[in-house]
């Protein structure tokens, strides 16, 4: 895997004058119902070296695609432009951009020297006639040009929404091919937008539910490689894997890392009964966290590592519970109609995402940790397995269609239920796990 060194050049910011006081700052409040996406313009970046020509327009295209993909922005086509941007450092003709109703303007410049790529950008609040934040530049390799674009998009998105960034991230998922009775599954990793797909395992054994480590360098998953479900930890850089300790005659699955990355919480089945355990990855020492005859599975840590949300059918149907990370008494938090499973604690700590099954339909939803403010974001024949974007504002999940020719596709939706859209993958996909923001 290619690693990039991205440097923020604070010095560049000094080249620009301080932004003028804006009367109505450019701002999107995500919690509010957006009626009209914010119009922006992202002209092709300036090529500052002969080799940068194609990349200059590709970068602007990826930035535009990132912003449009949020559902919060609308791009003004270049055919409507009155001004052209020929010089990254020239003053912006605000009136020309205002005339075509571009509320935000993103300009950039690209320099390619050998395999080194340098990208600069500026964001303008057109209606206030001022730059929004300071110019930034990112340095990396030509191979990693899409990451540069995502870095630019992240800065633009964060400045306008006030939310954390999420575009410079990856997703590990189960790639699926074949019909339901002969489905082949293998682990794959890709950029959040479906670009740069790489396969991490072959399809020789069933693989399920990969989960990123907190630093994004490893993945936990379940594989039937041994004939029985067992948990593996895979190093993404080297694509090497090892099986975690498990006793003969047991099954282990549904693993997730703790926020420290040093322990894993998972389900272990013995004698037909499934409980939740925690294991120290280095030593293989495990501790039991639940001890009931019910099915207890799908555990997920709170961001501070102090609590675990999980599902249990101890009440008779699948419901969500929260317990201390050391085990002990659990509080039920789901009380609506239907069954609740696959809880995932938001990285912001404020919400839990879940799969709900009710009256023959499946939903992805969110609720607060006390079970209040339940909100269903989707509805279909079979939606399942939510995962959070690093900023806790967007959820990805899998949707399986019904019938003999049914297949599974990844989708994303924001936490208000807007902007449901498929994620493009080369074949079917399920069990997505969103990485933290890349370093």
């Amino acid at each position, binding site marked *: 895997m290619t690693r990039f060194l991205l440097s923020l050049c604070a010095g560049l910011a000094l080249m620009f004058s301080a932004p003028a006081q804006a009367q109505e700052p450019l701002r999107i409040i995500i919690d509010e119902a957006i009626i009209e996406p914010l119009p922006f313009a992202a002209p092709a970046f300036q090529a500052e070296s002969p080799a940068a020509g194609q990349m200059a327009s590709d970068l602007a295209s990826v930035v535009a695609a990132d912003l449009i993909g949020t559902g919060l922005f609308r791009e003004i086509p270049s055919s409507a432009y009155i001004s052209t941007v020929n010089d990254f450092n020239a003053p912006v003709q605000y009136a020309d951009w205002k005339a075509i109703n571009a509320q935000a303007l993103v300009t950039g410049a690209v320099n390619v020297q050998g395999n080194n790529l340098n990208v600069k950008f500026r964001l303008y609040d057109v209606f206030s006639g001022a730059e929004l934040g300071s110019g930034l530049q990112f340095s990396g390799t030509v191979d990693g040009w899409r990451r540069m674009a995502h870095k630019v998009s992240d800065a633009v998105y964060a400045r306008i929404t006030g939310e954390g960034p999420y575009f410079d991230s990856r997703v590990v998922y189960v790639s699926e091919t074949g019909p339901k009775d002969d489905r082949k599954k293998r682990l794959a990793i890709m950029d959040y937008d479906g670009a740069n797909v790489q396969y991490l395992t072959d399809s020789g054994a*069933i693989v399920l539910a990969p989960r990123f480590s907190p630093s994004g360098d490893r993945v936990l998953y379940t594989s039937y490689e041994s004939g029985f479900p067992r948990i593996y930890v895979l190093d993404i850089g080297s694509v090497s894997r090892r099986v975690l300790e498990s006793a003969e005659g047991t099954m282990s*699955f549904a693993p997730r890392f703790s926020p420290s990355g040093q322990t894993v919480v998972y*389900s272990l*089945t013995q004698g*037909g009964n*499934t409980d939740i355990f925690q294991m120290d990855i280095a030593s293989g020492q495990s501790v039991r966290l639940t001890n009931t005859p019910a099915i207890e599975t799908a555990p997920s840590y709170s961001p501070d590592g102090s609590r675990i949300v999980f599902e249990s059918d101890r009440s008779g149907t699948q419901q969500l519970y929260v317990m201390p990370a050391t085990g002990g008494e659990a509080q039920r938090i789901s009380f609506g109609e239907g069954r609740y499973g696959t809880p995932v604690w938001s990285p912001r700590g404020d919400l839990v995402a879940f799969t709900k*099954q009710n009256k023959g339909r499946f939903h992805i939803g969110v609720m607060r940790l006390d079970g209040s403010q339940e909100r269903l974001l989707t509805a279909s024949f079979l939606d399942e397995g939510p995962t959070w974007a690093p900023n806790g504002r967007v959820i990805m999940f899998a949707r399986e269609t019904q*019938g*003999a020719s049914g297949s599974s596709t990844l989708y994303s939706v924001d936490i208000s239920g807007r902007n449901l859209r498929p994620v493009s993958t080369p074949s079917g996909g399920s069990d997505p796990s969103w990485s933290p923001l890349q370093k």
Partner: protein
Amino acid sequence: MKRLMISGLLVAALAVTACTNPDRFGADGTGAGLDANAGTTGGIIPGSANDPSSTAFFQQSIGDRVLFEVDQSTLTATGRATLDGQAQWLMTNSDYQAIIEGHADEQGTREYNLALGARRANAAQEYLISKGVPSSRLRVVSYGKERPIEICSNEACYAKNRRAVTVLAGGLTS
């Protein structure tokens, strides 16, 4: 459950075996030793569906699977009758071991279905043990909803997918 009835048609039986029950353990005995035994077994071809000690006979005449109600792992009366037959057969054919595979239909989340399939496999295993099959000869695994045999999305298919299948290993020692 649509149990396969004993078929006197050797060809048909072999065809069904080959197509729905690929033998991962090489225990169906087709081929080796066939000529040598033909004279002493009164026309029964070892490994075929009319050889009472064969995997094919177990699958088709005893019944290798039991079915479950929605979200249940309690054995039905039909299921217990099938398992009675399996237990008796396993006691007679003591050179076989078995893996009991638990399965769920697609209406459920992945992790829960894995656990539910394990409950079903375990229910079948415990019943067999209660009928005298040594636990050392039995193992269980759950596939959750990962391995449906029927792929329509309605109860007719779901009912066949909610199953515990006893898959034989070993046997026909040479």
